[in-house]
């Protein structure tokens, strides 16, 4: 991204809030604040150090005001960009720009959602669209199902290949103590589960959980003096192609193609250099689309690529090592958790699911109905 400097800023603190099903009457802002507290503990900084506040949630119209008031701070820099689940990847780029310009010295990116507790309809109100709503699309599932239908038609992708994505995510989740799902899953079980919007059964679709968290960023210089090894921001890229699925130019090609290219160019890296991938898997087709568009296989070959455990634990390419939105947690805007897991992998904190010799990571966010795509490449100290 023009103007951002490779490695000029780093993620220094990460934390999840309570996940899964949180205590009754907890608010989205409560979860943000809990995430901020834990992320501060993770890096050793204090609340008074935060002078950049970035947040997004579907449950507060002016979340920047709510969170600043709650924390008792008046930050010099505020950003509440909201573009769906990828918002937090956009936030990383905005935080890096603000840190480079000296608009702030320490930025926190926070998220919270209680959609499981209060119900998805209350957590995220759908806008009426006179050109789509009459046809009763069950959004977002129907939109992603339309994209999957096109991929199956053009490239011969099968339901079994989609199911392989869900099975791999489950295998990773079984290695993550805080993952929502605790039982093994097989391809036949995915196919036999309740149909939602063909070709997706409920097992092709992300979870509906509560959850939140925070990511703390600072300049590379300051990052080196903190508690844990920094995860340097090597590359950022972003692309928006549409808002509604009926306006997506080509249902088999996402903005990840452009966002990935930008991120690789800034990072001076290519797909073969990446050690771990955290891809926004709202639906099983997502992982296939992003493996293609981010250059890990050719367009149309993503279905075959994910077969035979290739992205599962022990496979050639570790993808969604926390268990993903499919099996770990998905509170509605999942992107922040990709940054958290990528950072922990680079630090070597992931226990049973730790990827060996992990020095570079992609955290790729998706928002809306394949609408907003944003890629962040992070690197350990050896990469800068």
């Amino acid at each position, binding site marked *: 991204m023009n103007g951002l400097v490779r490695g000029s800023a780093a993620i220094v603190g990460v934390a999840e809030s309570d996940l899964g099903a949180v205590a009754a009457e907890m608010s989205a802002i409560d979860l943000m604040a809990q995430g901020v507290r834990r992320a501060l503990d993770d890096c050793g900084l204090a609340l008074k150090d935060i002078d950049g506040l970035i947040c997004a949630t579907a449950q507060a119209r002016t979340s920047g005001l709510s969170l600043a008031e709650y924390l008792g701070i008046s930050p010099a820099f505020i950003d509440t960009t909201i573009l769906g689940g990828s918002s937090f990847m956009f936030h990383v780029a905005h935080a890096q720009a603000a840190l480079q310009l000296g608009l702030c010295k320490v930025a926190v990116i926070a998220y919270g959602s209680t959609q499981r507790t209060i119900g998805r309809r209350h957590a995220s109100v759908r806008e009426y669209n006179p050109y789509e709503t009459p*046809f009763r699309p069950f959004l977002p599932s129907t939109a992603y199902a339309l994209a999957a*239908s096109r991929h199956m038609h053009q490239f011969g992708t099968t339901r079994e290949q989609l199911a392989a994505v869900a099975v791999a995510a489950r295998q990773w989740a079984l290695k993550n103590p805080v993952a929502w799902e605790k039982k093994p899953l097989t391809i036949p079980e995915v196919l036999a589960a309740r149909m939602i919007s063909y*070709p997706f059964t409920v097992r092709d679709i992300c979870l509906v959980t509560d959850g939140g968290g925070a990511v703390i960023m600072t300049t590379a210089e300051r990052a080196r003096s903190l508690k844990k090894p920094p995860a340097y921001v090597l590359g950022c890229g972003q692309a928006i192609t549409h808002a509604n699925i009926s306006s997506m130019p080509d249902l088999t090609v996402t903005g990840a193609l452009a966002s990935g290219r930008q991120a690789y160019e800034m990072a001076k890296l290519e797909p073969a250099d990446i050690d771990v991938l955290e891809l926004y898997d709202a639906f099983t087709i997502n992982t296939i689309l992003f493996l293609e568009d981010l250059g890990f296989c050719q367009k149309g070959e993503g279905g075959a690529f994910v077969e035979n455990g290739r992205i599962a634990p022990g496979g050639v390419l570790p993808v969604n090592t926390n268990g993903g939105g499919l099996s770990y947690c998905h509170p509605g805007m999942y992107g922040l958790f990709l940054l958290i897991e990528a950072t922990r992998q680079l630090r070597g904190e992931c226990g049973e699911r730790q990827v060996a010799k992990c020095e570079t990571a992609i955290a790729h966010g998706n928002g809306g109905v394949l609408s907003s795509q944003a890629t962040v490449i992070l690197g350990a100290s050896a990469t800068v």
Partner: protein
Amino acid sequence: MERVDTSPLTIYQQYLDRGELAYQWSPTAGRAVFYPRVICPFTGSDRLEWRVSAGLGTVYATTVTHPRDGAPYNVAMIDMDEGFRLMSRVEDVAPEAVKIGMRVKFRLHRPGGDEPPYPVFTPLEEGA
């Protein structure tokens, strides 16, 4: 640009009330625009002309959505011969029998009550 006295959506629905599927044509871009807008998304021009579609198109993408209660139903995206795409559904066949590449024709659906009419599609008979 001048004040808008009748919104693009109102005009679109006025055509539907007469049984016609309308879209916009951008002379500056030389291509169709859908959904209707006040400026062209390809050139930024506010010169947009209304045209009536011949009503023929091809299924671009399709799914069968299964509600918790009630029968499964089709949701599809249709590429119209004039070069625009819209969300709709294909009727008169089982929802799972709707296939990508199927030729379809426009039919007006009047849901009744306060709901405005909207375009649905039916399979185009061979040779029609």
